[in-house]
């Protein structure tokens, strides 16, 4: 049975030249797990909102959306609100009330259910989602992952027939994201719930999905089984930007052009590699690691805690970053990575240990000297960087503070805008930009400080695969300019591609630091999917491209004989 | 931290209050060892008396803590009509203060700087306070049988004046004050 049938839906926002949706047709069957992917700005969010009447944006629309055979607009209010559940991207903003139990009860209260019914439903949901432990807690004290789980539970408590989710994991760390996706899979498998999920982190979503829709510029480009998508995309263009967002196994498969079933998981990927390739050449050649003799930043045995009676967050952190190097600090949530970055940036004072930046102790920097051509920190949430009504005003302000002349300022802003590809964004309000665009503009503001050392805190949070690639390109450019980059991230794949050295942060200190290929090759769990797929054959391949390259070389070697 | 601040502020206010008021400490004996001018033939004098007869008719309204001959004498007379030397510029209030001090009668007043009338207000004499005997009770004064319509510290006395301090339980009606009835 078709639960949703969208026919030839076209939509444009008021005063927009481009159509946000352009002749979209699709059907979602009852019980299906459909995944919607595409670059940011392709119309995913608009399409999803058109499926939920209460959230449908205003604008010019044509075509129709049918839910259970009824035109969505003709549906009675109660079923429209209760049967179609919607979870949004930002975990924070969807929480309405201050107590967890009240949040869960919010939907049923709207439905006007009796206290006993609400009590039962809330109890049921809290048990299913494992919320009991913090059921009576404050919503403000939850982690991002817990908040998003609560948002999901408070939609599920209304017993919807279909669940629509708009990039629900983009603000979560990998472990919370993976838990969330697992929960979705469970809801789909065990309750037969129909799920429509827009997502750009596809590694774990693909194996659970029944159907994948790829959108591009307001159109549905592809619609098919997860196993077919890689091949179909490749058929459209071998360098299609969406390819970069697919799971590693799919990327390796589609990069090799072998006639076999497409693997979706690491397990399938390993089987696939074993079946088709040998390990005659088992290493990629890595240029030897060299570094400049000048130390850009150094921490020696640094200890930090937030309050006298609180536990230590940093317990003797020591590391050295050389000039022009890009250094990635990886680690789980709450290990103190971000704190270490803040201490390095002088935002928190260590109570023991030595921090040297640019050959000078951090304590010897007076006033704002540390932030003048020395160090710049791009915070996790790029929105916090902007205070003005448009990006350009923010840029001008910082130039004024840095005392650039007008000519110097205009030249510098123009140069950076071109370098980062943001020239068309400077007149917009910062909040109107997408996550990736905000990130780039915030980075531009940092670069106007002309720092020698750039600190990035979780730069890949909330941005899609394509924006990640753009960011990697920008970082390569900065490296070429001789800027030292220190990145704190959860994103193993991103770290593989963008670092000269990687370090693992655990329990308040740095436990190991090495070049990415040896670092990840030695890790068993904390490593890229590509490495996990290939490690039984190849010793040090960590990125998909490296695996593909090794496979190809082995294939050629085997066929020459 | 905040509680500490509060205490510091309170303490400072108190200290300021004490300093502003000035600190002149005397023992009880010292205070009452006051000098009364002797009456000589050439000295100008006034007569003063303090009465609370009205209370006797309103015993039921009287504050239970004052139900005693000690505070309300059986004849209603706290100070018999007595003669005192009038000093240059003495007001009705000055006279009262001197008389109660000489007779060790308790008296409490509100300074003229503390009220809107700019005149001293007598709150209580011999523990008998305003409102001690019903909501319309308090102290009033007469000079030569007339109720002056202004504060006692503004009324300058003349030779031979008779000042009577009387306690009313009914806004002056029960002691024969006419202007209070109208207003």
């Amino acid at each position, binding site marked *: 049975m078709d639960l949703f049938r969208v026919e030839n839906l076209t939509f444009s926002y008021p005063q927009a030249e481009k159509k946000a949706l352009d002749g979209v047709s699709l059907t979602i069957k009852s019980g299906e797990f459909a995944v919607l992917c595409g670059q940011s700005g392709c119309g995913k969010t608009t399409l999803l909102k058109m499926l*939920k009447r*209460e*959230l449908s944006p205003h604008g010019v629309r044509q075509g129709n959306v049918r839910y259970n055979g009824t035109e969505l607009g003709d549906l009675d209010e*109660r079923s429209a*609100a209760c049967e179609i559940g*919607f979870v*949004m991207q*930002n975990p*924070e*903003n*969807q929480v*309405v*009330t*201050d*107590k967890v*139990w*009240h949040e869960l009860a*919010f939907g*049923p*209260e*709207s*439905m*006007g*259910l*009796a*206290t006993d019914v*609400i*009590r039962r439903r*809330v109890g049921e949901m809290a048990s299913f989602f494992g919320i009991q432990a913090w059921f*009576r807690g404050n919503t*403000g004290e939850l982690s991002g992952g817990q908040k998003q789980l609560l948002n999901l539970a408070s*939609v599920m408590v*209304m017993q919807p027939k279909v669940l629509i989710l708009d990039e629900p994991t983009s603000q979560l760390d990998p472990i919370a994201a993976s838990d969330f996706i697992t929960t979705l899979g469970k809801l789909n498998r065990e309750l037969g719930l129909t799920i429509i999920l827009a997502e750009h982190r596809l590694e774990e979503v693909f194996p659970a999905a029944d159907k994948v829709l790829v959108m591009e510029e307001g159109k549905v480009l592809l619609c098919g089984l997860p196993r077919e998508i890689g091949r179909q995309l490749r058929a459209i263009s071998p360098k299609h930007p969406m390819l970069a967002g697919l799971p590693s196994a799919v990327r390796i498969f589609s990069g090799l052009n072998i006639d076999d079933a497409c693997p979706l998981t690491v397990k399938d990927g390993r089987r696939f590699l074993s079946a088709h390739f040998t390990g005659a050449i088992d290493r990629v050649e890595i240029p030897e690691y060299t570094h400049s003799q000048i130390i850009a930043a150094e921490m020696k045995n640094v200890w930090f805690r937030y309050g006298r009676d609180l536990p230590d967050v940093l317990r003797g952190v020591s590391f050295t970053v050389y000039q022009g190097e890009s250094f990635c600090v990886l680690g789980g949530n709450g290990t103190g990575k971000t704190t270490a970055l803040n201490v390095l*940036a002088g*935002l928190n004072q260590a109570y023991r240990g030595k921090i040297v930046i640019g050959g000078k102790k951090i304590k010897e920097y007076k006033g704002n000297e540390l*932030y*003048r051509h020395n160090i710049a*920190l791009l915070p996790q*949430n790029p929105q*916090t*960087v*902007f*205070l003005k009504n448009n990006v350009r005003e923010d840029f001008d302000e*910082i130039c004024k503070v840095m005392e650039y002349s007008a000519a110097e300022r205009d030249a510098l802003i123009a140069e950076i805008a071109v370098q980062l590809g943001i020239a068309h964004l400077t007149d917009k309000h910062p*909040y109107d930009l997408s996550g990736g665009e905000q990130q780039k503009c915030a980075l531009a503001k940092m670069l106007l400080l002309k720092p020698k050392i750039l600190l990035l805190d979780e730069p890949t949070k909330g941005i899609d695969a394509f924006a990640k690639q753009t960011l990697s390109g920008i970082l390569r450019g900065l490296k070429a300019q001789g800027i030292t980059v220190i990145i704190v991230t959860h994103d193993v794949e991103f770290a593989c591609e963008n670092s000269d050295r990687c370090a693992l942060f655990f329990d308040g200190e740095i436990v190991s630091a090495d070049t990415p290929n040896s670092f990840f090759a030695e890790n068993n769990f904390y490593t890229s999917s590509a490495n996990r797929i290939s490690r039984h054959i190849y010793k040090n391949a960590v990125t998909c491209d490296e695996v593909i390259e090794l496979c190809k070389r082995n294939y050629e070697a085997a066929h020459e004989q | 931290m905040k509680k*500490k601040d509060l*205490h510091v502020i*309170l303490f400072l206010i108190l200290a300021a*209050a*004490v300093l502003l*008021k000035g*600190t*002149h400490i005397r023992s*009880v004996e*010292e205070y009452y060892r006051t000098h009364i001018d002797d009456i000589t033939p050439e000295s100008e004098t006034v007569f003063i008396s303090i009465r609370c007869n009205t209370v006797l008719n309103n015993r039921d309204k009287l504050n*239970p*803590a004052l139900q005693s001959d000690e505070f309300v004498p059986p004849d209603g007379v706290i100070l018999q009509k007595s003669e005192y030397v009038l000093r240059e510029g003495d007001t009705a209030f000055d006279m009262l203060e001197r008389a109660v001090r000489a007779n060790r009668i308790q008296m*409490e007043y509100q300074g003229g700087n503390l009220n809107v009338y700019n005149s001293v207000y007598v709150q*209580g004499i011999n*523990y008998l306070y305003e409102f001690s005997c019903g909501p319309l009770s308090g102290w009033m004064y007469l000079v030569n049988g007339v109720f002056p319509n202004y504060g006692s510290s503004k009324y300058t006395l003349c030779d031979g004046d008779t000042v009577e301090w009387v306690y009313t339980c009914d806004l002056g009606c029960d002691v024969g004050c006419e202007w209070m009835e109208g207003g």
Partner: protein
Amino acid sequence: MRAFESVHPAAAFAYFISVLLVAMFTAHPVLLCEALLGAVLFCAILSAKGFWKNMASYVPLFAIIALSNPLFSHNGVTMLFFLNGNPVTLEAVLYGADIAVMLIAVIYWFQCYSFVMTSDKFLYLFGKAIPKLSLVLSMALRFIPLFKAQLIRVNRAQKAMGLYSGKSFTDKLRSAGRVLLALITWSLENAVETGDSMRARGYGLHGRSHFALFRFTGRDGVLLGISAALTGLTLTGRALGGADFAFYPRITGISTAPLSLAVYLAFGALTLLPFIIETEESLKWTYFVSKI
């Protein structure tokens, strides 16, 4: 979790109100001492940790109030000395001490109140009368910490760019104003999303109901009954003159008439009620544990 925390909000609220009403409108030293004792014992059980530290800070408060009263009140037959022509009397000092006991007792009771009557309980009580208000309050309680956290984040981000961290006061004020302005935009932006989330969950549908976790049990009924009876007894006894006490002009003795004793007993029992409940509970637990 303390036993009293699990009491139904209505019963707990009624209890606090009756104790406070009696304590705030009496000057009888016995009743006030009972109020203080009950509050201190209750508070000690509720927040054992910071209790003594907290207590130390009330000593100077006590002294200040007790000693400042004689400066402003000169009534009383037992004159100690004269200060600037005004008598400082023993009665005034004792009355000051009495008021100080009342004030500290009331503060302690409010501390216990805020510990027991958390925001959700309060909202539950008054939400029934005004459901919209209760939702608004709940949203506000949710929003304030959110706003604070974002304020800290923005300030840090700006500081790390060497902006808005001027040393002078006017600089600070001006930059705080700008940050606040930006944060208001941010809040509005977020409010749109919160509103979407509410509508997506059927907010605005006709016939909204009101849900709460609390259930009125027999235990709550008993507690409510006992406290009502004790309060009634205290108030009746008071009305009949059982709790009369005067400081001025001479301190009346503490009455030991049967009526007065009944008032002391009733109010004493009322103030000690939470302590008795908690003690009974913990005794039960030691008994259970010893049986295992």
